[in-house]
């Protein structure tokens, strides 16, 4: 909607409303399609927009290529989290998780496959689902959020098999540890808990705020982001962004970033993190800041790396947060362009 309007023509109601909507938009989640050529982004109004990456990255890209090819209303509330399997896209918002077929979405047919709610303790509860995690080995999906439990849903039958309890406050983020089938969860109560999926129990609890080196009481104790590499784990949020060695549960490197980080991920030999502030930070494992690349949003909430083997030409990093734009980085050194709702 960015046409140049001559100053004498007044903007219509609709256009003003849309402009305001875009001004106050926050993009909470992003997800790449299984073919690697499309990106789905979910915002706080419950809309999901699909962008064509291959069109935007091609040499004949125009302004329209940076707009979504289809936008649809997925949930009534914000879309907090999305994951994708070979054929489906799962999106989660306030209390419910919905499934969509990628083939349908790309043809602009926006009908959900199913909509399920995990079993909550009382029927009045509508806790938000902050994180979704796919466990390919047992073909299940893990949901975690406001009710402080991790729910497991079997993807074949659609039933909710386990509810892991242990957190005392809502859960922000999940991560999967490949070698042992363990799930890590980080929450508002300041703990990172490791759960063994086969025994359905909590195996280890790391109270991050109790370690002096990383705790920052003035920011709180909440764990906002989590990433794991089997032996190592990075977590951050209220306490400083820290690299932990899981076997010995010791914090090894503290990354000197004052702003709380909202998303972190391992990539090759680097750790990428983003949070308050417009930059994507690249760290070496030893704690040195290798690069800080500014994006276009004032704060970033999610980072996503397109490593789908089917589309090596669309291998990009995308970052989105407190604005209606998704920044695309083709080379980690600079922001190439931005897609916009």
């Amino acid at each position, binding site marked *: 909607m960015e046409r140049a309007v001559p100053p004498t023509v007044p903007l219509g109601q609709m256009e003003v409303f849309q402009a305001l909507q875009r001004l106050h938009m926050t993009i909470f989640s992003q997800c790449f399609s299984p073919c690697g050529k499309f990106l789905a982004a979910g915002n706080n109004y419950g809309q999901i927009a699909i962008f064509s990456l291959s069109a935007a990255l091609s040499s004949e890209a125009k302004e329209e290529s940076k707009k979504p090819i289809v936008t649809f209303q997925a949930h009534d509330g914000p879309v907090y989290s999305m994951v994708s399997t070979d054929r489906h896209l799962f999106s989660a918002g306030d209390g419910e998780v919905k499934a969509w077929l990628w083939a349908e979405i790309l043809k602009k047919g926006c009908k959900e496959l199913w909509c399920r709610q995990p079993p909550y303790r009382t029927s009045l509860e509508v806790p938000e689902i902050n994180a979704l995690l796919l466990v390919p080995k047992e073909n299940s999906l893990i949901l975690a959020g406001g009710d402080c439990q991790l729910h497991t849903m079997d993807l074949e039958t659609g039933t909710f098999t386990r509810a892991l309890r242990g957190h005392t406050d809502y859960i922000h983020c999940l991560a999967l540890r490949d070698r042992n089938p363990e799930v890590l969860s980080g929450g508002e109560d300041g703990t990172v808990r490791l759960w063994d999926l086969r025994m359905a129990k909590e195996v280890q609890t790391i109270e991050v705020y109790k370690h002096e080196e990383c705790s920052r009481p003035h920011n709180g104790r909440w764990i906002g982001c989590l990433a794991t590499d089997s*032996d*190592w784990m990075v977590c951050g949020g209220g306490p400083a962004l820290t*690299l932990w*060695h899981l076997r*010995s549960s*010791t914090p*090894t*490197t503290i990354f000197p970033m004052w702003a709380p980080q909202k998303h972190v991920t391992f990539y*090759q*030999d680097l750790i990428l993190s983003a949070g308050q502030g417009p930059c994507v930070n690249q760290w*070496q*494992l*030893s704690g040195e800041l290798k690069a800080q690349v500014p994006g276009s949003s004032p704060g970033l909430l999610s980072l996503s790396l397109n490593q789908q083997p089917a589309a090596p030409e669309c291998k990009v990093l995308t970052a989105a947060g407190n604005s209606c734009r998704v920044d695309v980085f083709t080379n980690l050194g600079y922001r190439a362009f931005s897609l916009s709702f």
Partner: protein
Amino acid sequence: MAPKQGPLDEVIRKRLLIDGNDAGDDRRINLLVKSFIKWCNSGSQEEGYSQYQRMLSTLSQCEFSMGKTLLIYDMNLREMENYEKIYKEIECSIAGAHEKIAECKKQILQAKRIQKNHEEYGVLAKVIQHHPDRHETLKKLDAMGKELEHLSHIKESVEYKLELRQKQFHVLLSTIHELQQILENDKKLSELEEAQETSMDTDPKP
């Protein structure tokens, strides 16, 4: 505009094709035709002869320019071949460069993995360094163990002495008590005897 210009275009095209670079060949051939007609119409022997010589020279000029053009044509053909060869070579080297790039990318990934392992090692090493050396700790443990033994020995001997003294005091005290008892008994006996004697004394007349 198109229909009238059509035949004119054709004419221009034909003229350009014949003599595009304006080397004068076309003019020379026209001149040759005119001079042939003049020679046929010439009167005297000398005029005819000079006209004939002029025609021969024009002919040889035409042949010369024809020879030049043929050579140029040959040269162009050979240049084309040369370019084809160079083009193929460059294509091969591009393909080779692509492969090398792919190889280098793999090597970069490998190098990054090695770097990552190196850093992980460094980080863990730092943590381990914080903890004191195992040998020293073991030595300290040994020393403390010995001290503990030594102290417990002392404790034992002290306790033994204490018990001994206790027993000795006990013996002493009990002996004292017995002696006291004996003395008291003696005293009582002697008092009794005294009392008996005085009562016998006060009652002397039977």
